[in-house]
């Protein structure tokens, strides 16, 4: 705890990553707009990335953490593209992206 006051440490970055993850989780769980839920997923991935790079810098050394974060960014971009394409297709079909309305498979 004492090193929290003095200068920059691993804990600083871990707290920021954890907060980003929590806000992302909150977004995914409370939003009914599908695009907003995708934003929450991006926040979660960013929180994970901050943790990866921080551990790479302070604990592991080398570059493996950064390369891992790079692949996470690639997959996040792919996920966003496909997710938004699906959302647009749903919108063209039922004119709504409220996740409560997307229940046609239930009938």
């Amino acid at each position, binding site marked *: 705890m004492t090193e929290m006051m003095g200068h920059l440490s691993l804990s600083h970055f871990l707290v920021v990553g*954890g907060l980003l993850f929590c806000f992302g989780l909150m977004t995914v769980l409370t939003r*009914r707009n599908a695009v907003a839920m995708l*934003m929450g997923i991006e*926040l979660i991935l960013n929180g994970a990335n901050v943790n990866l790079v921080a551990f790479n810098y302070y604990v592991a050394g080398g570059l493996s953490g950064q390369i891992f974060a790079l692949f996470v960014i690639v997959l996040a971009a792919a996920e966003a593209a*496909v997710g938004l394409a699906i959302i647009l297709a749903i919108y063209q079909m039922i004119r709504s992206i409220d996740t409560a309305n997307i229940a046609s498979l239930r009938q």
Partner: protein
Amino acid sequence: MHTNLAVFYLFALAAVVGAAGVPMSKNIFWSAMGLLSALVGVGGLYVLLSADFLAVTQLLVYIGGVLVLIIFAVMLTSQIKEIEVSNQNVGLVSGAILFALTGTLLSFIAIWAPWKVVLRPESHETSAAIGNGLLGTWLLPFEVASVVLLATLIGAIVVARKEIKDD
């Protein structure tokens, strides 16, 4: 070292405040702007962690690509004027309780866990080493990622295009 700390708090504040705006704002366009602030803040943190290539990638891919895509989707799908329609929130109270619980737990772990921190000399620029690594040690994941991106490209086009029917 103290300038480092000041810069850290600047970017961390941008990241956390922006991230807080994503679940809380009434208008989904402001949610997207909050996401922008969060992504810029995270990019600044990458610079502080001496991950220069990753910071530039964050700017190019996330802010230049993903965020623009999200804003396009916002414009195409939601009626921004109708706030209730565009960004309904269910259970903000339970969400806040969940946030308090997980946030406290994660912060507690991050601050009090005995991390095995290794002190290193100041590191240098990373792009050359990352390039060598992608064509050496991490060649297979790199190639798989390119195949995934191709599949994404085709899949997104096929899913999002309007089908032209003959009848």
